């Protein structure tokens, strides 16, 4: 299949305007004759569902949560980017575009990224109008901060709870449409399959998590806004329920999966404390604006710190290595996430890590505390410091934080064209669920921007183009494809319950996470990846013969839910490994040890790998087929990223 990204003709800055004019419109009186299913009610889903309902479409919105307000988006801390240039510091749409393409290590589509930067300004206006309480200056205008390696202040924020406030804004818009009867909300309903009729997406199969009832739902188009798959690593900063099932089911029905190996490891997370650890907690990137990252200069000193013989605050300046400031004088502690993470790992690999496990580096606030006082620091970061203390029982005002990289975000996802349509006609993907605009590495504060851009300002236009060409006939679930998909879901549930093995879904998930982290994590090499592939295949066999699920399918059964999600993670894990093996270069979050510069930085191969890898499912136990979407760069020059 030839991949058509449907990028509009014309100069970069005019593409979106032109495209909006060229897409077909659905007549206002006809909009109510179309049903659209939106799966997921995080930022990307709530914004899409509300906006489509406002236009007049009948929307059915699904979430496995008990309320849309609980989606993982709620946890985003740091902020959202927009090229407003309110600070008069040289920002522009082109600069945000440029930073995003460069930050993504030149593996994103120029046209999409430019559109993202263009609509970013409208997002802020929209959220303000909804009553989102962004941080403000004394004069009453909106405040900004610089974030995630940007050299301009373009990040809007609501203290450390930006995701919460943005999601509650989108949730309020969605709630309003529920009240108007334009959105029907299905909570605690998990999509377990996609229904295809004549090659088009026409509905979904869900399981109600409280009653266990399996239902089918029909629509003229389906939008997946089901988030990322970072939990394939078991431990990540994602919420516990985040999973790949919706996207993976769609993949098996024909939606290509793009760049699955592009995962982001965030440098500032609270380190693992024990085997019981169930998730990792992010310490917002904004802390790197004022915190200084260091490890002891020598392994001997590090050893003494690990044993508790020396306190970090007592180590002399001359015995510390502020390694980011030393290696990257221009950006210092603000280098992009992939660079910061890799360097922390390197320090620990050298034996200079701290904490009882040796898998941590320090993030030190002593200097800023001295400069502006503990009170000032508390105003900036109070909630983060309190959270750190709650979890670790250590006071970061007195003792540097211990941090270590953790899986945080997935740049890969369902392949979509410029219209956000997958390779299945009528199936769209938005937010973290698609392979999106971040290339091989996402910049801080850009995921919230992308989710809301997709939902508020892109999909409402582009979905019309498809619907206008679809007859406005009522849809129902009479077609045999619905009964067939439903039977498939029920059979799988039965199968999971029938195995009655000896290992719990959590045990399998941890085993998978271990393989992924060791061999497909911060650094990868061909040998390790080949080993991982065999291990995952073995794990998959064991899962289907030895997993243990108690209870029945006709009740709230969290072990059953978990088992289904882990089964899909195992399959996705293998594809991630395949993708990492096929990409013989290093770029962004994908660091292949064989491909690095003499200084140990990622070495891209633009000649051979400036493409999007879009994987096509070929059937059970068949190797997937790699399709390539070549990337062309007309507006930025490909350079070796340098933050020195």
């Amino acid at each position, binding site marked *: 299949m030839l991949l058509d990204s449907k990028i509009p003709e014309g100069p970069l800055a005019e593409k979106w305007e032109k495209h909006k004019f060229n897409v077909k419109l659905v007549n206002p009186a006809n909009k109510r004759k179309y049903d659209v299913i939106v799966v997921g009610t995080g930022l990307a889903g709530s914004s899409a569902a*509300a*906006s489509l309902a*406002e236009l007049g479409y009948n929307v059915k919105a699904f979430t496995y*949560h*008990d*309320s849309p*307000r*609980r*989606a*993982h988006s*709620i*946890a985003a801390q740091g902020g959202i980017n927009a090229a407003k240039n*309110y600070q008069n510091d040289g920002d522009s749409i082109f600069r945000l575009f440029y930073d995003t393409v460069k930050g993504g290590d030149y593996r994103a589509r120029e046209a999409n990224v430019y559109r993202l930067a263009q609509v970013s300004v*409208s997002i802020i*206006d*929209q959220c*303000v109008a*909804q*009553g989102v*309480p*962004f941080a*403000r*200056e*004394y004069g*009453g*205008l*909106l405040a900004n901060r610089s974030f995630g390696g940007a050299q301009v202040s373009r990040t809007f924020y609501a*203290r450390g*709870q930006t995701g*919460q406030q943005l999601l*509650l804004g989108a949730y*309020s818009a969605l*709630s*309003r449409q*529920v*009240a108007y009867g334009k959105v029907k909300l299905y*909570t605690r309903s998990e999509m377990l399959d996609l229904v295809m009729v004549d090659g088009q997406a026409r509905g979904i199969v869900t399981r109600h998590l*409280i009653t266990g009832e399996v239902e089918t739902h029909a629509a003229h188009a389906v939008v997946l806004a089901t988030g990322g798959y970072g939990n394939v690593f078991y431990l990540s900063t994602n*919420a*516990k329920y985040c999973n790949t099932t919706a996207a993976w089911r769609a993949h098996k029905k024909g939606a290509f999966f793009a760049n699955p190996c592009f995962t982001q490891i965030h440098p500032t997370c609270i380190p693992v*404390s*024990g085997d*019981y650890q*169930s998730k990792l907690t992010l310490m917002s990137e904004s802390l790197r604006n004022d915190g200084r990252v260091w490890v002891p200069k020598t392994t001997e000193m590090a050893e003494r710190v690990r044993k*508790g013989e020396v306190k970090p605050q007592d180590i002399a300046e001359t015995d510390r290595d502020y390694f980011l400031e030393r290696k990257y004088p221009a950006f210092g502690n603000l280098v992009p996430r992939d660079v910061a993470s890799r360097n922390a790992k390197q320090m620990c690999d050298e034996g200079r890590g701290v904490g*009882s*496990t040796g898998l941590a580096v320090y993030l030190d606030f002593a200097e800023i505390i001295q400069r502006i006082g503990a009170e000032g620091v508390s105003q900036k970061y109070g909630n983060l410091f309190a*959270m750190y203390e*709650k979890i670790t029982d*250590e006071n970061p005002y007195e003792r540097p934080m211990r941090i270590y990289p953790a899986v945080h975000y997935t740049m890969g996802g369902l392949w979509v064209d410029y219209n956000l349509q997958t390779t299945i006609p009528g199936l769209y993907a938005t937010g973290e669920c698609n392979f999106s605009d971040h290339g091989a590495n996402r910049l801080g504060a850009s995921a919230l921007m992308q989710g809301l851009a997709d939902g508020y*300002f892109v999909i409402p236009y582009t979905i019309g183009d498809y619907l206008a060409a679809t007859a406005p006939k009522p849809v129902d679930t009479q077609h045999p494809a619905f009964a067939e998909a439903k039977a498939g879901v029920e059979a799988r549930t039965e199968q999971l319950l029938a195995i009655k093995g000896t290992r*719990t879904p*959590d045990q399998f998930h941890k085993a998978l996470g271990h393989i992924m982290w060791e061999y497909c994590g911060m650094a990868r090499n061909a040998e390790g990846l080949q080993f991982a592939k065999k291990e995952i295949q073995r794990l998959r066999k064991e899962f289907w013969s030895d997993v*243990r699920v*108690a*209870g029945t399918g006709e*009740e*709230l059964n*969290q*072990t059953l839910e978990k088992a289904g999600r882990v089964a899909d993670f195992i399959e996705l894990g293998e594809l991630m490994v395949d993708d990492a093996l096929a990409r013989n270069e290093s770029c962004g979050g994908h660091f292949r040890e064989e491909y690095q510069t003499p200084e140990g930085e990622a070495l891209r191969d633009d000649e051979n790998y400036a493409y999007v890898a879009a994987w096509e499912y070929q059937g059970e136990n068949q190797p997937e087929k790699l399709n390539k979407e070549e990337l062309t760069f007309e507006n930025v020059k490909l350079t070796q990223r340098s933050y020195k």
Partner: protein
Amino acid sequence: MAGSNPNAKPMNLTLNVWRQPNRSTEGKMVEYKVKDISPEMSFLEMLDVLNEDLLHAGTDPVAFDHDCREGICGSCDLFINGRSHGPEKGTTTCQLHMRKFSDGDTITIEPWRANAFPVNKDLSVDRSAFDRIIQAGGYVSVNTGGVPDGNEIAIPKDIADRAFEAATCIGCGACVAACKNASAMLFVSAKVSQLALLPQGKPERKTRVENMIEQMDKEGFGACSNIGSCAAECPVGISLENIAILNREYISAKATSNNLA
């Protein structure tokens, strides 16, 4: 593997847990023992240990709601030793750590108890009443697009900050569970104050408060008798001042209601 405190000693605990198969079947307390619990664990990680044990023993694990485990999504909702989210002030269940307990302790774990929050199973309750209250008016009626520039409306910083404080409610329901009347006033007041304080919320100020209060009553939440256990037990510190604002808003809306016609 030890965490920040290598000297922390593992604990053995007795748990009294509410078990209830579904909404229509009666429930009861059941006793379980858990061993070798690290003080570094979170409360939910301790329950994970219990559930893995139960599953290995062939018993149905205890159902409970959780997701972010960072104190922000509002999913977790346990009533621990007679208190919403347990003994630590300003803390959700997921952020509560076992170092707050001692070896040999008996811990009682129940679901939120309120007529408006029926039990789904074990410790999981149905809080969709909160969604319906927001649907009754917890929004500003703007469509996507066509709104003014974000900086066109200047909002004094102290007003913006107060609105933000109110807006940080996580919708967990601890306030309802802590209240002897099972009132939802703190939850409703947080949203009403946020939008009443901001210029964007002013046009719909009266109808909003009336409709949200009406829905709250319809859902079967109790009346507020000004005791303040809601704010005392709120994990994110939503202030009682919001209830005062809500009362003021409601009285003035009633006195000058747009709904009279």
